[in-house]
């Protein structure tokens, strides 16, 4: 059972364009929604994250939009650059008193064409 559903599986964007990756979840207990960026041969690295009490968070060219009622969140990459070409994972977490448990989407392979 996939706790977090991610789309699209792959995405090709022209340099300077906007990349949009979407995720949806079912469990309303999730209280932390990070996005990870992974380059080939490397482990995922946190890119940006949001809590459910805000609808948007922006860091540089990266923005998370969060729709609590629809149980959806998305990553927007503005002015996409070839260096952004990587695999992106969304995730959702429930904070238990003993720690966090994370559920990941299946990933989106982004290619930015120069």
């Amino acid at each position, binding site marked *: 059972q996939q706790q977090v559903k*991610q789309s699209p599986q792959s995405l090709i964007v022209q340099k300077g364009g906007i990349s949009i990756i979407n995720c949806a979840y079912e469990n309303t207990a999730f209280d932390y929604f990070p996005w990870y960026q992974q380059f080939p041969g490397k*482990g995922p690295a946190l890119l940006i994250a949001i809590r459910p009490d805000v609808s948007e968070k922006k860091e540089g060219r990266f923005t998370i939009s969060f729709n609590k009622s629809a149980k959806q969140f998305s990553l927007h990459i503005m002015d996409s650059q070839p260096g952004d070409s990587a695999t992106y*994972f969304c995730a959702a977490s429930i904070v238990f*008193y003993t*720690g966090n448990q994370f559920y*990941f*989407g299946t990933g989106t392979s982004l290619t930015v064409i120069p």
Partner: protein
Amino acid sequence: GAGVSQSPSNKVTEKGKDVELRCDPISGHTALYWYRQSLGQGLEFLIYFQGNSAPDKSGLPSDRFSAERTGGSVSTLTIQRTQQEDSAVYLCASSEPAGTNSYEQYFGPGTRLTVT
């Protein structure tokens, strides 16, 4: 460096052999996670350690998989009688103690396991 380290970076083994994968988390991080990433796939949760609590083993795919964490720090993932479908990248991550404001997981570079 202060990041999560994993060893070996690559491991090729014959079907049926046992393998051990090692993870050194960031010092002070009480939470440690193991994930499996198959080619072109997402991250599959395997096991989670938090401090001295009993580990959450709910993601282990079979009884051939086991993990331990000694002294609340280094962790070893063991796969017995390896099968070709075990071929994947095994990722380790750690995070700060529960109750802190940081939920961030820090990932290691992974161990690429190939079973021939």
